[in-house]
């Protein structure tokens, strides 16, 4: 029974597996075809994109060249204009400066003449006044000197004479004092030497007697 079953089932199973494999193969073929179609489509798109890219680059380069040309032309024009303006300005400034120098020279000459005139006038006035002042001062000085001389004679000279007299008297007193001292010292020494030893002894005893009477030894 089993053998019969197996003899029926195994071929059936093999047939089914074969059918499944055939089906899977068909499916794979179909998918491969789809993929190939998609790859072709993508290649087309890539070619188109590449073409567009190159076109854009070419356009950009062309535009850049145009811009550079325009800028160069413009710069050249500006430089030309600038040189012209600079030259014109220089001429104008030179003219103005020359004019200013001429004006200044004229003004200086005029001012100098004016100052000289005024100064001369002032000097004339001043010298006249100075002379007058000097005469006044001299006169006043003479009067002051006479006054001082009079004061000196009346007061200072008198005081001076008085002070000299006092100083003289003081010095004489000092001299007298010194002389007296010298005389006294000399006299003391002379007396000391001239007194005999006997008299000295007597005077010593007299001195002791006097001390006793005065209570020195009490």
């Amino acid at each position: 029974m089993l053998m019969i079953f197996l003899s029926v089932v195994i071929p059936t199973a093999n047939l089914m597996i074969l059918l499944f494999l055939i089906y899977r193969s068909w499916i794979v073929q179909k998918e491969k075809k789809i993929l190939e179609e998609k790859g072709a489509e993508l290649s087309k798109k890539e070619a188109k994109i590449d073409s567009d890219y190159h076109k854009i680059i070419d356009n950009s380069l062309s535009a850049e060249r145009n811009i550079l040309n325009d800028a160069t032309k413009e710069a050249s024009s500006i430089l030309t204009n600038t040189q012209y303006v600079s030259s014109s300005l220089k001429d104008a400034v030179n003219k103005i400066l020359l004019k200013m120098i001429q004006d200044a020279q004229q003004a200086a000459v005029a001012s100098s003449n004016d100052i000289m005139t005024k100064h001369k006038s002032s000097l004339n006035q001043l010298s006249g006044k100075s002379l007058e002042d000097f005469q006044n001062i001299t006169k006043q000085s003479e009067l002051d000197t006479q006054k001082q001389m009079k004061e000196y004679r009346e007061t200072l000279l008198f005081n001076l004479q008085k002070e000299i007299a006092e100083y003289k008297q003081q010095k004489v007193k000092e001299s007298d004092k010194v002389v007296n001292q010298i005389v006294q010292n000399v006299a003391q020494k002379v007396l000391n030497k001239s007194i005999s030893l006997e008299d000295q002894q007597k005077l010593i005893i007299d001195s002791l007697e006097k001390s006793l009477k005065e209570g020195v030894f009490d």
Partner: protein
Amino acid sequence: MIKMGELILSDFFTTKSQANNFLAQLNAVTEKIFDLDFNLETSVRSQFGAKKTDRFISLVRENEIPPESGMALNNFLNHIKEVVSSLPVATIAFAIEPNEQILKNVSDWFILNLKKQVLIEPEIDHNLIAGTVVSYQGKRLDSSVKSVFEQTCANIFQNTPVK
């Protein structure tokens, strides 16, 4: 028994410095009193000289001190030292340098008038002319000729008008 105050030593010294010297000599004698070969006269002579030795031996006899008794001699010498140390001192300024005779006269004057010996401490001041300036126990008196002379000079110079 030794009686205090009866010793008069003016034959040995009159001034304070002489008294100090005398004490030193006395000490030298005292140190030898108890030596076996001690002899008073010989020992004193070696310190004081011949003249003062005789006077010193007389002094010992006068005070009845037996010279052979070391103890008695020692007591006597110590008593002399005490007397010397207690003597009063008078400072006297002289107009001249006083010789031994002047000093002895002054010392004797003190013994005669004060009844005691006084040591003299002499000073010399030639400006005094004559006389003395005495200083004794805090008191002082100038009784020299100088003070009289100065007063006389002052009167003379004061009466002389300044020209």
